[in-house]
């Protein structure tokens, strides 16, 4: 078994290969691609595409192919969640102090309104200055991108762990990768396991990135942090589908779990702040229960 670990997109990544070594060439290729992705789509990078319109006037603008793909999916999620998920809520996170300087000092000014936007093909229409936060869906997309690099290079049996979200094919003997699921807010405590076999897994919670009274997930409809959902897990055909599902679950306090499962073809678990586990009926993993 070969392993390759590195830091990217603000978290620890580990790649496991069960057939080929991670030589210098593939390592370089992966690191460059992720760095390029981060340069283009991190709101913490001044020159990124998601920051390109932070001083723009109302109007219609052209965006790149890839940015259009990401924004189109974000637009679908926004519709699905009746506006509770909105990447334009970056303005609220910045107001709370989760800005690119990591100031963590809430603004004393009035809560800003979230700018309006729409996307059609590669044209984006905005109501004024706007910054997008693709944090909820970008990592899953990036994990699939790394999977694409590995597959193109001939790797067949591998797992990509992007800080707890992942994608895996199978081990060399054809068996699945066994993944333990960590209880939100209880590091080291596991509530179940699930097997990954050519599937993506996304995990999100409101307990991890906290600063003061706030965390990093905002309900765009209220402009406040979500208080009902503690965490969620999704299992899908790709890491991106799974990541998009957890983004919807986390930002949408009274979400229709079945609708999200149907739209993104995923199975899921939602954990409420009261630590109730809402297990999707197609969830294939094991959940530890009392005797």
């Amino acid at each position, binding site marked *: 078994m070969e392993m390759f670990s590195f830091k990217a997109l603000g978290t620890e990544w580990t790649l496991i290969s069960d057939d080929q070594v991670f030589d210098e060439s593939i390592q370089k290729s992966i690191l460059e691609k992720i760095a390029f992705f981060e340069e283009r789509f991190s709101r913490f990078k001044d020159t990124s595409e998601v920051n390109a319109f932070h001083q723009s006037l109302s109007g219609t603008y052209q965006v790149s192919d890839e940015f259009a793909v990401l924004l189109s999916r974000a637009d679908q999620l926004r519709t699905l969640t009746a506006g509770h998920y909105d990447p334009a809520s970056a303005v609220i996170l910045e107001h709370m102090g989760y800005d690119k300087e*990591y100031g963590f000092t809430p603004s004393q000014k009035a809560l800003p309104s979230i700018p309006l936007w729409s996307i059609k093909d590669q044209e984006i229409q905005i109501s004024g200055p706007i910054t997008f936060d693709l944090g909820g869906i970008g990592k899953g997309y990036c994990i699939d991108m790394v999977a694409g690099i590995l597959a193109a290079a001939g790797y067949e049996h591998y797992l990509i762990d992007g800080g*707890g979200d992942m994608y895996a094919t199978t081990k060399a003997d054809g068996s699945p990768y066994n993944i*333990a699921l*960590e209880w939100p807010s209880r590091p080291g405590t596991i509530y179940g396991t699930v097997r990954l076999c050519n599937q993506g897994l996304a995990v999100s919670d409101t307990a991890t990135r906290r600063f003061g009274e706030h965390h990093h997930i905002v309900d765009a409809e209220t402009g406040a942090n979500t208080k009902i959902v503690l965490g969620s897990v999704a299992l899908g055909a790709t890491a991106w589908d799974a990541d998009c599902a957890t983004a919807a679950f986390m930002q949408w306090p009274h979400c229709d779990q079945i609708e999200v499962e149907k739209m993104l073809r995923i199975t899921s678990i939602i954990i409420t702040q009261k630590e109730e586990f809402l297990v999707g*009926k197609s969830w*294939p993993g*094991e959940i*530890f229960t009392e005797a």
Partner: protein
Amino acid sequence: MAISKKASFLLILLVGVVGIIMKFLLNPFSSKEAAKPVDNTEIVVEDVPGEVPTPIPTPTEPAPTPVAKVTSPEIPAKATAKKISLNTSYKSPAGMEDVGFVLNMDASGVVSSAEAIIHATNRESVKYQTSFRDNFNAAIVGKKLSDLSSVDRVGKASLTTGAFNASLSKLKAQI
């Protein structure tokens, strides 16, 4: 004239039969017989081989038939764990509805997983069964990672590194 009388008789008969059918369809539980409690609970206990299986995935859409019996894998001679499937009915405002449960128990009798299966077709019933199913997993317990074997990775919300935690530490130091 005789034909006309026969036609009238058949028409009255037809109206009567249709009326009875419509009355039943619109209010199926108005008769004493239909109002009796129905106990058609069906429990199936099956031995399953070695490792405890995960719950059987069910279709995303509600099952179109009222009772979908749960099937299990072939049963070998040295079975230890058990799968208990149960289908039952209850009366809802929309009529009789069916619901199923599957419990997987290991060899020592510990329930390793439990699942409620929605069979309802009525929209409201699906909503209530969904809510029930969601709360069915009441007794979920945590285990230490060190107690688990054969785990390849841990799925968890990503911990940011570097700048985020460093800035947070500095902020806390100033308080």
